[in-house]
């Protein structure tokens, strides 16, 4: 299409160009031809005028009355005849002279009796009967004819002439299509006699151009081609007719032609363009429309399918695009719906709730956020199956939704978590609403033919006081729900600060690895003393963490966090290595004591623990029985299978195993019998107030007896006074631990303590003696 257009363009321009080239190239040739023709015409006109003049003059010359007037020298009559004739023939000049050349009458105002001005011409007329010539007279040129007026006895000469004036120049100019200038030259001087050009056109430039004229040669100036026509030459100067071909005028026709050609070309181009556009519209426009349509679909804009007036493939394509649009819309709608709705219940999902929350936060809307969970949902799933659980969730969701005001947002934000955003301002109406919710939701239900009582727990956050971001909501709701599950009325309001604890835990979890490396974590050791001999035989290793910002961290807390965050192995490893190093130091100092190390419940699931201990305490081979590992009762019970294996591995290392905090758990003696342990450590809660608590005394005494009966040694911790020491000593308890004997201390203080204790040892045995004596 474009090729077609360009070929049209190129062809048109080429044709126009070639034609223009020839037109302009021919300019001079044409001008020369034109001037040559003009020259012929000018000569012809002059000749014709001469003939006209002759025939005019003949009539006059033959007129008897005129002749008789001449004969009688009737000057007024002659003059009137001349004037009459002159007017009729259009001659400007008329003179009558006698045979000797003396003026008889004239129209030029010359004095009669003076000689005729054209003596030469008269002579030649007398010679040959008549004469015609172009002469210059009184700064004008005349085409003059002299004819005889002859009668019997009459010899006179009539001179008549046309002036070569502007009018005549214009006349010839009009005939020939040129400009005509009559010019006289005498010597080197040129003089303009008449011209068809206006006076102002005869500027200096043109005049100088005239001066260059040489004979019949063609001269071209900026404006004209000029041809000189010699009308007369003689000693008294020459007269020329200059024929000027106006270049602009000559070219005007060419310009006109060029313009027409240009119009033709433009028309051709226009038609071609229109054709192209029409074709493009017919073919391209629907395609373009479809392309735009497809682009709009791609951008997800809402558009109407283009109204195509074509058939065939384009229509099929249009239809396909339209179908595509509808399907895309449907899919988009579904995706959008799915994105913000829960699969199971069809309720808004977390995303939807969070979006709503953002609105609440940005508008500082007041109200309550209530998180609702099925109590014991996990158990429900496990006992009745997941599909049952789903049904239960669905039932609860529907019941809650049914009881909530229409305008309140309610959705399922997790497996077992619903959230309702209640625009309720006061707590009492909230409580009544929640009571209603609960009473409806907890009505007995039948799911898959199974009657069931569903229980809920609810957590309430007051907005915006309790949370101002989605993250906070999520975290605090989760915390509060956890509390609500165990709350008396299964309902909990968010407790300010609860979340801060949580945050602290998070931070501790985060800081734990660094603490191990940076030395913020260190070991304390608390001495254990043998009752009978009051000898220092062992220490319990206790991990300590002094956080640079949070200060002293409770070991129970960070050990629990380490367990939860999966860092307990690293922590245990750290503890083991540190103890190994510290004990090595003691040994160098001659302090030969055993070490008791606490293991967490999770440590007992680590099958590599035994290997690790074996590696770390290489130096202890042969006296591994100096190592005691304390395991809490609950830890042993939690996962008895693996724990027992690990304990067996430890025991096979030759270390001693101790059940820590004995008496707080539910371990039966039957279980205890099964465990491969060597020692019981009576929980300090029984020991602290032993002196004043007869029940504790009974429990402790019988536990010692029972343990001894089972072949286990017994450790008592929490001994803070001499009474407890003496009682336990009396009951045959094996090892003592407590502030009464020594506080936990850093490794380097142990040697000093040991020396001090030696001085006390005698007292303790003495006390025993005295006690014994007193008992």
């Amino acid at each position, binding site marked *: 299409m474009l090729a077609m257009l360009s070929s049209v363009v190129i062809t048109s321009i080429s044709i126009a160009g070639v034609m223009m080239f020839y037109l302009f190239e021919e300019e001079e040739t044409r001008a020369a031809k034109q001037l040559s023709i003009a020259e012929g015409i000018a000569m012809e006109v002059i000749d014709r005028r001469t003939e006209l003049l002759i025939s005019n003059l003949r009539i006059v010359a*033959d007129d*008897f009355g005129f*002749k*008789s007037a*001449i*004969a*009688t020298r009737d000057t007024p009559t002659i003059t009137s005849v001349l004037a009459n004739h002159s007017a009729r023939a259009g001659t400007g000049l008329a003179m009558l002279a006698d*045979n000797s050349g003396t003026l008889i009458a004239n129209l030029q105002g010359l004095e009669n009796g003076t000689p005729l001005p054209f003596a030469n011409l008269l002579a030649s007329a*007398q010679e040959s009967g008549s004469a015609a010539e172009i002469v210059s007279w009184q700064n004008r040129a005349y085409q003059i004819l002299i004819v005889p007026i002859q*009668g*019997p*006895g*009459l*010899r006179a000469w009539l001179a008549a002439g046309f002036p070569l004036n502007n009018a005549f120049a214009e006349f010839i100019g009009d005939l020939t299509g040129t400009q005509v200038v009559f010019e006289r030259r005498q010597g080197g001087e040129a003089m303009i006699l008449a011209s068809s050009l206006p006076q102002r056109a005869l500027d200096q430039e043109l005049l100088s151009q005239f001066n260059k004229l040489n004979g019949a040669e063609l001269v071209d100036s900026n404006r004209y081609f000029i041809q000189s026509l010699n009308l007369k030459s003689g000693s008294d100067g020459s007269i020329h007719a200059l024929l000027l071909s106006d270049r602009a005028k000559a070219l005007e026709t060419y310009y006109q032609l060029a313009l027409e050609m240009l119009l033709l070309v433009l028309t051709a181009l226009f038609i071609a363009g229109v054709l192209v556009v029409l074709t493009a519209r017919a073919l391209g426009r629907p395609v373009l429309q479809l392309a735009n349509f497809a682009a709009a679909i791609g951008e997800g804009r809402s558009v109407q399918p283009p109204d195509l007036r074509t058939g065939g493939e384009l229509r099929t394509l249009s239809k396909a695009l339209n179908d595509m649009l509808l399907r895309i819309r449907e899919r988009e709608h579904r995706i959008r719906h799915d994105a913000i709705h829960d699969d199971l219940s069809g309720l808004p999902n977390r995303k939807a709730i969070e979006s709503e929350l953002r609105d609440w936060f940005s508008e500082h809307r007041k109200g309550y956020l209530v998180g609702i969970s099925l109590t014991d949902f996990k158990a429900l799933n496990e006992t009745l199956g997941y599909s049952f659980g789903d049904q239960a969730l669905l039932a609860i969701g529907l019941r809650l939704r049914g009881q909530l005001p229409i305008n309140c947002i309610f959705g399922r934000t997790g497996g077992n978590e619903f959230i309702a955003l209640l625009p309720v301002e006061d707590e009492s109406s909230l409580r009544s609403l929640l009571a209603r919710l609960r009473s409806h939701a907890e009505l007995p239900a039948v799911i898959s033919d199974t009657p069931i009582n569903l229980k809920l727990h609810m957590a309430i956050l007051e907005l915006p006081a309790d949370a101002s971001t989605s993250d906070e909501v999520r975290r605090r709701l989760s915390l509060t729900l956890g509390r609500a599950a165990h709350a008396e009325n299964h309902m909990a309001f968010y407790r300010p600060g609860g979340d801060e604890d949580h945050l602290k835990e998070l931070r501790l979890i985060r800081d734990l690895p660094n603490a191990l490396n940076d030395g913020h974590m260190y070991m304390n050791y608390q001495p254990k003393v043998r009752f009978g001999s009051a000898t220092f035989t062992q220490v319990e290793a206790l991990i300590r963490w002094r956080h640079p910002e949070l200060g002293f961290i409770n070991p129970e807390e960070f050990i629990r966090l380490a367990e939860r965050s999966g860092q307990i192995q690293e922590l245990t490893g750290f503890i083991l290595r540190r103890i190994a190093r510290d004990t090595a130091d003691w040994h160098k100092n001659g302090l030969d004591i055993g070490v008791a190390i606490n293991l967490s419940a999770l440590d007992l699931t680590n099958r590599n623990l035994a290997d690790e201990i074996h590696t770390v305490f290489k130096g202890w081979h042969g006296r591994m029985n100096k190592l005691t590992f304390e395991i809490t009762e609950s830890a042993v019970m939690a996962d008895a299978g693996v724990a027992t294996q690990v304990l067996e591995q430890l025991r096979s290392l030759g270390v001693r195993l101790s059940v820590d905090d004995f008496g707080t758990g539910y371990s039966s003696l039957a279980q205890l019998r099964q465990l491969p342990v060597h020692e019981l450590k009576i929980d300090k809660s029984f020991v602290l107030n032993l002196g004043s608590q007869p029940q504790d005394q009974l429990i402790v005494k019988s536990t010692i007896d029972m343990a001894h009966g089972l072949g286990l040694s017994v450790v008592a911790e929490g001994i803070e006074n001499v009474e407890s020491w003496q009682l336990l000593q009396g009951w045959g308890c094996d090892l003592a631990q407590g502030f009464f004997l020594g506080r936990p201390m850093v490794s380097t203080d142990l040697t000093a303590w040991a020396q001090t204790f030696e001085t006390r040892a005698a007292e303790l045995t003495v006390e025993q003696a005295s006690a014994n004596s007193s008992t």
Partner: protein
Amino acid sequence: MLSNGHFGLLAAFILALGTPLQSFAGSVSLEFYDQSTGKPLPGVVVTADNGMTPSPATAEMAQQQRAFAPHVLIIPQDTTVSFPNRDNTQHHVYSFSKPKPLNIELYAGQPEAPIRFDKTGIVELGCNIHDNMQGFIVVTDKSQASRSGDDGISQFELPDDSLEGGLNVEIWHPRLRNNTTSQFITLTGPFPITQTLTLDVMPEKAPRSGLEGLQKRFRDL
């Protein structure tokens, strides 16, 4: 042939004039040539004063076959000339010549009155209808008048005393460039005088086509 017809009457006149003067012994022989052709020029009218005055007479200038007959009429002063029309067409004879302007309006046959030529000079005659008709009347107060013959020679006798103070002779020819007046020449003696004169005359006109001016003009229209 033509010249014979034209000059018949003139010959008789010259003869009449010349007879009483034969006793004088001065002989003049003028030989005329046409300057342009170099040929002898006939028909040159030569008049000279021979001491006598010619007496007036009557003469006739007829129009015959659309021409004046004779072509050149030489008459003494005060001679009365009649203009009979012998054609079947009318003629309108006129002259603008100073010695005797005349105008005889259209007529056939004999005009009402003959015309007396009282002044000397050349009177050229024309017909207003027939432009080609041209005739001349030479009015002279001299007794001696002659014409050159076909050989261009004009010969006449003059009294001896004519030479005193120079002999003035008038010569005229119809084809002189200015044929409205005679030319004067002065001859010097002694007798016999023989002189060759070359005249600048206009070429002889071609024979007439026979159509006259007016007819021609109609035809041109």
